[in-house]
């Protein structure tokens, strides 16, 4: 074990040397708390990702929260129509920084086969998306792949958020 690039020194010294930046990123990427914004069959696939066979807790993201105040990963799983748009935007706004968005499935990414007046053609028109998962619906492995990709992204981004105040 050890934080990236900074292996833990020998146990007898009782000391770990690393950078605060790395520790914060290590904590963030291994304790993503997802808020499943499930509106269609993708949410069913997310359930099996959480359950024991695929077991999302191997990646530290098993603590599913239904309050935006307690979560930092908005997982949009399903069709988002124009009437749902303001609701999803409001939930994203209520989440605390740092926050991440995964767009799961064809509908959330691009509207899917709902090429019509009712469906938003991609949630990136409302919220910034970090990782897109293709599929209709995606396999649980694809969801885990997205979690890993997001972890890599967190790892490669400076931990201190730019001062926006």
């Amino acid at each position, binding site marked *: 074990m050890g934080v990236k690039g900074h292996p833990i020194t020998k146990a007898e010294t009782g000391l770990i040397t690393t950078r605060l930046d790395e520790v914060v990123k290590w904590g963030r990427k291994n304790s993503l708390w997802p808020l499943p914004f499930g509106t269609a069959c993708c949410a069913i696939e997310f359930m099996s990702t959480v359950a024991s066979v695929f077991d999302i807790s191997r990646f530290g993201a098993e603590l599913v929260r239904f309050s935006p105040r307690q979560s930092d990963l908005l997982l949009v799983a399903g069709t988002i129509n124009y009437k749902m748009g303001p609701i999803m935007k409001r939930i994203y706004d209520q989440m605390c920084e740092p926050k991440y968005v995964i767009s799961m499935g064809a509908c959330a990414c691009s509207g899917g086969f709902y090429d019509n*007046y*009712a469906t938003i053609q991609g949630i990136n028109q409302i919220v910034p998306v970090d990782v897109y998962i293709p599929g209709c619906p995606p396999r649980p492995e694809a969801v885990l792949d997205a979690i890993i990709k997001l972890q890599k992204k967190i790892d490669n981004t400076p931990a201190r958020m730019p001062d926006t105040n």
Partner: protein
Amino acid sequence: MPQNPDQLQQIVDKVSQNLRGAITGEEDSYGDRVLIVARDHVHDTLAAFKAEGFDLLLDIAGVDLLKIEHADRFMLTYILYSMKTDLRLRIKVFVAKDDMKVASVADLWESANWAEREAYDMFGFEFEGHPNLARILCHREFEGHALRKDYPLMKGQWATTASDLMVDLERE
């Protein structure tokens, strides 16, 4: 259970004798008897059929006849069913684009309440006497009527506020 055509014919004859001029045509379609009813007689006629035992209003469907040669632009279809006699009946009403007022039947069947709101939302039928003729599927800020043939298929409209479902539920 097969329908009894004689029994249905008796009911139709009785209603058409009582309401002269209301039923302007009859046809058969996919095994159902279809009656064409004048727009001004919608409420009388449907009330008469309810009194004859049609206790369920299964659905109200709107049709836009823009791409079909017809004198009137729109059509409404009421599907009635009798649980006692297992009879089905469809009522067609033609509605012109300039005057889309139709009497509401929400006072006869509870199910007409949301069905008429949907027909209003999608086509713009104005149901007179409806207790709450508001949009039911599209957002209240939506402009136009989405299932009209001249509405652009891909024309989405951004909503600025979240609709509160409870407002509707508490009214009813």
